[in-house]
Protein backbone atom coordinates (compact mmCIF):
# COMPACT_ATOMS: atom_id res chain seq x y z
CA UNK A 1 0.00 0.00 0.00
CA UNK A 2 1.32 3.41 -0.91
CA UNK A 3 1.13 6.05 1.73
CA UNK A 4 0.15 9.54 0.70
CA UNK A 5 3.49 10.93 1.76
CA UNK A 6 5.44 8.57 -0.55
CA UNK A 7 3.13 8.99 -3.47
CA UNK A 8 4.14 11.30 -6.28
CA UNK A 9 1.64 12.08 -8.91
CA UNK A 10 3.16 11.05 -12.25
CA UNK A 11 1.35 13.92 -13.88
CA UNK A 12 3.36 16.33 -11.75
CA UNK A 13 6.55 14.96 -13.23
CA UNK A 14 5.10 14.79 -16.70
CA UNK A 15 3.94 18.35 -16.54
CA UNK A 16 7.46 19.52 -15.72
CA UNK A 17 9.05 21.21 -18.64
CA UNK A 18 12.58 20.12 -19.55
CA UNK A 19 13.85 23.34 -18.06
CA UNK A 20 12.15 22.58 -14.76
CA UNK A 21 13.47 19.04 -14.79
CA UNK A 22 16.98 20.31 -15.32
CA UNK A 23 16.68 23.03 -12.70
CA UNK A 24 15.44 20.46 -10.19
CA UNK A 25 18.48 18.28 -10.69
CA UNK A 26 20.91 18.33 -7.77
CA UNK A 27 23.48 21.13 -7.77
CA UNK A 28 22.12 22.83 -10.88
CA UNK A 29 22.01 26.57 -10.32
CA UNK A 30 21.23 28.00 -13.73
CA UNK A 31 19.93 27.27 -17.19
CA UNK A 32 20.05 29.31 -20.36
CA UNK A 33 19.01 28.48 -23.90
CA UNK A 34 20.01 30.60 -26.87
CA UNK A 35 19.11 30.52 -30.51
CA UNK A 36 21.75 30.26 -33.22
CA UNK A 37 21.73 34.02 -33.62
CA UNK A 38 22.41 34.52 -29.93
CA UNK A 39 18.92 35.48 -28.79
CA UNK A 40 18.08 34.29 -25.30
CA UNK A 41 15.12 31.92 -25.48
CA UNK A 42 15.00 30.62 -21.91
CA UNK A 43 16.83 31.82 -18.86
CA UNK A 44 16.45 30.63 -15.30
CA UNK A 45 18.52 30.67 -12.16
CA UNK A 46 21.64 32.47 -11.12
CA UNK A 47 24.70 33.60 -13.00
CA UNK A 48 22.99 33.01 -16.34
CA UNK A 49 23.12 36.57 -17.64
CA UNK A 50 26.82 36.52 -18.29
CA UNK A 51 26.72 33.00 -19.62
CA UNK A 52 24.01 33.92 -22.09
CA UNK A 53 26.27 36.59 -23.57
CA UNK A 54 29.05 34.19 -24.44
CA UNK A 55 27.28 30.88 -24.91
CA UNK A 56 26.76 30.96 -28.66
CA UNK A 57 30.19 32.44 -29.30
CA UNK A 58 31.74 29.75 -27.16
CA UNK A 59 29.97 27.00 -29.05
CA UNK A 60 31.06 28.45 -32.39
CA UNK A 61 34.68 28.73 -31.30
CA UNK A 62 34.63 25.23 -29.81
CA UNK A 63 33.35 23.91 -33.14
CA UNK A 64 36.11 25.76 -34.99
CA UNK A 65 38.76 24.44 -32.62
CA UNK A 66 37.51 20.95 -33.29
CA UNK A 67 37.61 21.56 -37.03
CA UNK A 68 41.25 22.58 -36.73
CA UNK A 69 41.90 19.08 -35.47
CA UNK A 70 39.66 17.42 -38.00
CA UNK A 71 36.97 16.77 -35.41
CA UNK A 72 33.36 17.09 -36.46
CA UNK A 73 30.00 17.10 -34.76
CA UNK A 74 30.51 19.10 -31.60
CA UNK A 75 28.50 17.37 -28.89
CA UNK A 76 29.29 18.83 -25.53
CA UNK A 77 31.60 21.11 -23.62
CA UNK A 78 32.41 21.24 -19.96
CA UNK A 79 33.85 24.47 -18.70
CA UNK A 80 35.36 24.11 -15.28
CA UNK A 81 35.98 27.09 -13.08
CA UNK A 82 36.97 27.18 -9.46
CA UNK A 83 33.52 27.44 -7.99
CA UNK A 84 31.26 26.29 -10.79
CA UNK A 85 31.07 24.19 -13.90
CA UNK A 86 29.17 24.96 -17.07
CA UNK A 87 27.87 22.31 -19.41
CA UNK A 88 27.27 23.52 -22.94
CA UNK A 89 25.24 21.43 -25.36
CA UNK A 90 24.06 22.15 -28.88
CA UNK A 91 20.30 21.96 -28.98
CA UNK A 92 17.76 22.70 -31.69
CA UNK A 93 20.21 24.69 -33.77
CA UNK A 94 21.18 26.81 -30.80
CA UNK A 95 22.91 26.23 -27.50
CA UNK A 96 21.97 25.21 -24.01
CA UNK A 97 24.13 26.15 -21.06
CA UNK A 98 23.66 24.70 -17.61
CA UNK A 99 25.52 26.03 -14.61
CA UNK A 100 26.40 23.60 -11.85
CA UNK A 101 28.03 24.19 -8.54
CA UNK A 102 31.28 22.51 -7.59
CA UNK A 103 29.55 19.63 -5.81
CA UNK A 104 27.68 18.42 -8.87
CA UNK A 105 28.30 14.96 -10.22
CA UNK A 106 29.06 15.96 -13.72
CA UNK A 107 28.40 12.80 -15.71
CA UNK A 108 25.12 12.05 -13.97
CA UNK A 109 23.92 15.60 -14.42
CA UNK A 110 24.88 15.67 -18.08
CA UNK A 111 22.94 12.46 -18.67
CA UNK A 112 19.95 13.95 -16.93
CA UNK A 113 20.18 17.12 -19.00
CA UNK A 114 20.38 15.10 -22.19
CA UNK A 115 17.33 13.06 -21.24
CA UNK A 116 15.36 16.16 -20.39
CA UNK A 117 16.31 17.88 -23.64
CA UNK A 118 15.53 14.75 -25.64
CA UNK A 119 12.03 14.69 -24.18
CA UNK A 120 11.44 18.29 -25.20
Amino acid at each position, binding site marked *: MISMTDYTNPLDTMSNTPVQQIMQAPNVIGYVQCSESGDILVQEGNEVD*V*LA*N*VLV*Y*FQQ*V*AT*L*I*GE*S*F*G*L*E*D*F*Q*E*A*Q*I*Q*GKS*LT*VVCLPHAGGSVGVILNSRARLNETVNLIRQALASA
Partner: protein
Amino acid sequence: MEVSKLFDNILDLPGIEGVCLFGAEGQMYINRLPSFLSTELFADAQRRIVAMYETMDDNFIPCDDYMLKFSERWLLLRRTDKHVMLILGGEKANLASTRMVTNMTLKHLTPQILAQLEAVARAAVPGAAVPAPRMQTQVPFPAAIAAPAPAPTPAPALASVPAFAPAPALAPMSVAVATMAPVAASLAAPVAVAVAEAEPVPTEQVKVRMYRGRPY
Protein backbone atom coordinates in the same frame (compact mmCIF):
# COMPACT_ATOMS: atom_id res chain seq x y z
CA MET B 1 62.35 13.49 -13.37
CA GLU B 2 62.99 13.94 -17.06
CA VAL B 3 60.51 16.30 -18.66
CA SER B 4 59.67 14.13 -21.64
CA LYS B 5 58.70 11.29 -19.31
CA LEU B 6 55.97 13.46 -17.85
CA PHE B 7 54.39 13.66 -21.26
CA ASP B 8 55.06 10.00 -21.92
CA ASN B 9 52.97 9.24 -18.85
CA ILE B 10 50.03 11.04 -20.44
CA LEU B 11 50.49 9.30 -23.77
CA ASP B 12 50.69 5.95 -22.02
CA LEU B 13 47.08 6.22 -20.98
CA PRO B 14 44.79 4.14 -23.19
CA GLY B 15 42.92 6.22 -25.71
CA ILE B 16 45.14 9.29 -25.46
CA GLU B 17 46.30 10.21 -28.94
CA GLY B 18 48.32 13.35 -28.45
CA VAL B 19 49.43 16.05 -26.11
CA CYS B 20 51.04 19.41 -26.53
CA LEU B 21 52.02 22.34 -24.39
CA PHE B 22 52.10 25.89 -25.66
CA GLY B 23 52.41 29.34 -24.19
CA ALA B 24 49.80 32.06 -24.19
CA GLU B 25 51.98 34.03 -26.60
CA GLY B 26 52.09 31.21 -29.08
CA GLN B 27 55.40 29.61 -28.23
CA MET B 28 55.38 25.83 -28.48
CA TYR B 29 57.02 24.00 -25.62
CA ILE B 30 56.32 20.45 -26.58
CA ASN B 31 54.29 18.90 -29.36
CA ARG B 32 53.34 15.25 -29.25
CA LEU B 33 50.24 15.53 -31.37
CA PRO B 34 49.64 13.10 -34.23
CA SER B 35 51.82 13.82 -37.25
CA PHE B 36 48.86 14.43 -39.56
CA LEU B 37 48.23 17.76 -37.81
CA SER B 38 50.21 20.23 -39.83
CA THR B 39 51.80 23.32 -38.36
CA GLU B 40 49.37 25.61 -40.19
CA LEU B 41 46.35 23.77 -38.85
CA PHE B 42 47.71 23.83 -35.37
CA ALA B 43 48.51 27.54 -35.62
CA ASP B 44 44.83 28.12 -36.40
CA ALA B 45 43.75 26.01 -33.48
CA GLN B 46 46.19 27.76 -31.17
CA ARG B 47 44.85 31.17 -32.17
CA ARG B 48 41.28 30.06 -31.58
CA ILE B 49 42.08 28.52 -28.23
CA VAL B 50 43.79 31.69 -27.04
CA ALA B 51 40.84 33.75 -28.29
CA MET B 52 38.41 31.48 -26.48
CA TYR B 53 40.27 31.79 -23.20
CA GLU B 54 40.52 35.56 -23.50
CA THR B 55 36.84 35.97 -24.37
CA MET B 56 35.63 33.73 -21.61
CA ASP B 57 37.91 35.40 -19.09
CA ASP B 58 36.71 38.85 -20.04
CA ASN B 59 33.03 38.17 -20.55
CA PHE B 60 32.27 35.22 -18.28
CA ILE B 61 34.41 33.97 -15.44
CA PRO B 62 38.03 32.82 -15.64
CA CYS B 63 37.96 29.08 -16.26
CA ASP B 64 41.08 27.00 -16.71
CA ASP B 65 39.76 23.66 -17.90
CA TYR B 66 37.75 23.13 -21.04
CA MET B 67 36.59 19.75 -22.21
CA LEU B 68 35.32 19.78 -25.78
CA LYS B 69 33.62 16.58 -26.86
CA PHE B 70 33.12 15.63 -30.47
CA SER B 71 31.65 12.55 -32.09
CA GLU B 72 34.70 10.31 -31.78
CA ARG B 73 37.28 12.26 -29.86
CA TRP B 74 37.60 14.95 -27.28
CA LEU B 75 39.97 17.77 -26.54
CA LEU B 76 40.96 18.69 -23.04
CA LEU B 77 42.47 22.12 -22.52
CA ARG B 78 44.12 22.84 -19.21
CA ARG B 79 45.59 26.21 -18.46
CA THR B 80 48.04 27.25 -15.80
CA ASP B 81 49.59 30.69 -15.32
CA LYS B 82 51.48 30.92 -18.57
CA HIS B 83 50.74 27.90 -20.67
CA VAL B 84 48.01 25.65 -21.96
CA MET B 85 48.16 21.91 -22.17
CA LEU B 86 46.08 20.30 -24.88
CA ILE B 87 45.23 16.62 -24.80
CA LEU B 88 43.57 14.79 -27.66
CA GLY B 89 41.74 11.69 -26.56
CA GLY B 90 39.51 9.06 -28.04
CA GLU B 91 36.41 7.34 -26.80
CA LYS B 92 38.38 4.75 -24.87
CA ALA B 93 40.27 7.33 -22.84
CA ASN B 94 39.40 7.68 -19.20
CA LEU B 95 38.86 11.31 -18.36
CA ALA B 96 39.44 10.96 -14.63
CA SER B 97 42.78 9.25 -15.23
CA THR B 98 43.73 11.90 -17.73
CA ARG B 99 43.01 14.66 -15.27
CA MET B 100 44.99 12.89 -12.58
CA VAL B 101 48.07 12.37 -14.74
CA THR B 102 47.93 15.84 -16.25
CA ASN B 103 47.67 17.31 -12.74
CA MET B 104 50.95 15.64 -11.94
CA THR B 105 52.55 16.86 -15.16
CA LEU B 106 51.39 20.44 -14.68
CA LYS B 107 52.70 20.39 -11.13
CA HIS B 108 56.18 19.55 -12.40
CA LEU B 109 56.26 22.32 -14.99
CA THR B 110 58.46 24.85 -13.25
CA PRO B 111 59.75 27.98 -15.03
CA GLN B 112 63.17 26.32 -15.36
CA ILE B 113 61.67 23.29 -17.08
CA LEU B 114 59.59 25.50 -19.34
CA ALA B 115 62.68 27.47 -20.33
CA GLN B 116 64.44 24.21 -21.05
CA LEU B 117 61.53 22.95 -23.15
CA GLU B 118 61.36 26.21 -25.06
CA ALA B 119 65.08 26.07 -25.82
CA VAL B 120 64.74 22.52 -27.09
CA ALA B 121 61.73 23.46 -29.19
CA ARG B 122 63.55 26.45 -30.68
CA ALA B 123 66.55 24.33 -31.52
CA ALA B 124 64.31 21.84 -33.23
CA VAL B 125 62.54 24.44 -35.38
CA PRO B 126 65.07 24.60 -38.28
CA GLY B 127 65.07 20.82 -38.53
CA ALA B 128 61.33 20.62 -38.09
CA ALA B 129 60.81 21.09 -41.80
CA VAL B 130 63.01 18.12 -42.59
CA PRO B 131 60.67 15.29 -41.57
CA ALA B 132 57.80 16.63 -43.66
CA PRO B 133 59.42 15.96 -47.05
CA ARG B 134 60.34 12.50 -45.83
CA MET B 135 56.67 11.70 -45.66
CA GLN B 136 56.16 13.13 -49.14
CA THR B 137 58.94 11.11 -50.72
CA GLN B 138 56.59 8.21 -51.15
CA VAL B 139 53.93 10.29 -52.85
CA PRO B 140 55.43 11.89 -55.97
CA PHE B 141 57.17 8.83 -57.28
CA PRO B 142 54.10 6.68 -57.93
CA ALA B 143 52.40 9.74 -59.38
CA ALA B 144 55.28 10.31 -61.76
CA ILE B 145 55.44 6.69 -62.71
CA ALA B 146 51.71 6.52 -63.22
CA ALA B 147 51.89 9.45 -65.61
CA PRO B 148 51.99 8.19 -69.18
CA ALA B 149 55.59 8.63 -70.22
CA PRO B 150 56.41 8.69 -73.94
CA ALA B 151 57.92 5.50 -75.23
CA PRO B 152 61.65 5.76 -75.96
CA THR B 153 62.31 6.37 -79.60
CA PRO B 154 65.19 4.30 -80.86
CA ALA B 155 68.18 6.12 -82.25
CA PRO B 156 68.35 5.99 -86.04
CA ALA B 157 71.74 4.32 -86.00
CA LEU B 158 70.43 1.56 -83.79
CA ALA B 159 67.02 1.16 -85.36
CA SER B 160 67.70 -2.47 -86.01
CA VAL B 161 68.49 -3.11 -82.32
CA PRO B 162 65.92 -1.16 -80.29
CA ALA B 163 66.62 -3.22 -77.21
CA PHE B 164 70.09 -1.72 -77.02
CA ALA B 165 69.35 1.96 -76.87
CA PRO B 166 70.86 3.12 -73.56
CA ALA B 167 70.96 6.82 -74.30
CA PRO B 168 67.21 7.33 -74.83
CA ALA B 169 66.53 5.20 -71.77
CA LEU B 170 67.20 8.28 -69.62
CA ALA B 171 64.34 10.18 -71.19
CA PRO B 172 61.50 8.63 -69.15
CA MET B 173 63.32 9.38 -65.88
CA SER B 174 63.87 12.99 -66.80
CA VAL B 175 60.22 13.25 -67.81
CA ALA B 176 59.24 11.73 -64.48
CA VAL B 177 61.41 14.19 -62.62
CA ALA B 178 59.94 17.05 -64.61
CA THR B 179 56.44 15.82 -63.78
CA MET B 180 57.00 15.70 -60.08
CA ALA B 181 59.01 18.90 -59.91
CA PRO B 182 56.01 21.19 -59.44
CA VAL B 183 54.58 18.84 -56.83
CA ALA B 184 57.64 18.66 -54.62
CA ALA B 185 60.24 21.01 -55.98
CA SER B 186 62.45 20.78 -52.97
CA LEU B 187 62.32 17.03 -53.01
CA ALA B 188 62.85 16.71 -56.72
CA ALA B 189 65.87 18.99 -56.69
CA PRO B 190 68.42 16.39 -55.55
CA VAL B 191 66.98 13.84 -57.95
CA ALA B 192 67.07 16.30 -60.83
CA VAL B 193 70.68 17.12 -60.01
CA ALA B 194 71.53 13.45 -59.98
CA VAL B 195 69.88 13.00 -63.36
CA ALA B 196 71.61 16.04 -64.76
CA GLU B 197 74.96 14.75 -63.57
CA ALA B 198 74.43 11.53 -65.48
CA GLU B 199 74.88 13.10 -68.87
CA PRO B 200 73.39 11.13 -71.73
CA VAL B 201 75.92 9.36 -73.90
CA PRO B 202 75.63 10.25 -77.59
CA THR B 203 74.30 7.36 -79.56
CA GLU B 204 77.21 7.57 -81.93
CA GLN B 205 79.57 6.71 -79.10
CA VAL B 206 77.62 3.73 -77.91
CA LYS B 207 79.45 0.55 -78.68
CA VAL B 208 77.36 -2.52 -79.15
CA ARG B 209 79.09 -5.80 -79.31
CA MET B 210 77.87 -7.68 -82.34
CA TYR B 211 78.10 -11.30 -83.34
CA ARG B 212 77.26 -12.14 -86.93
CA GLY B 213 75.25 -8.95 -87.27
CA ARG B 214 73.24 -9.53 -84.05
CA PRO B 215 73.91 -8.29 -80.56
CA TYR B 216 74.99 -10.72 -77.91
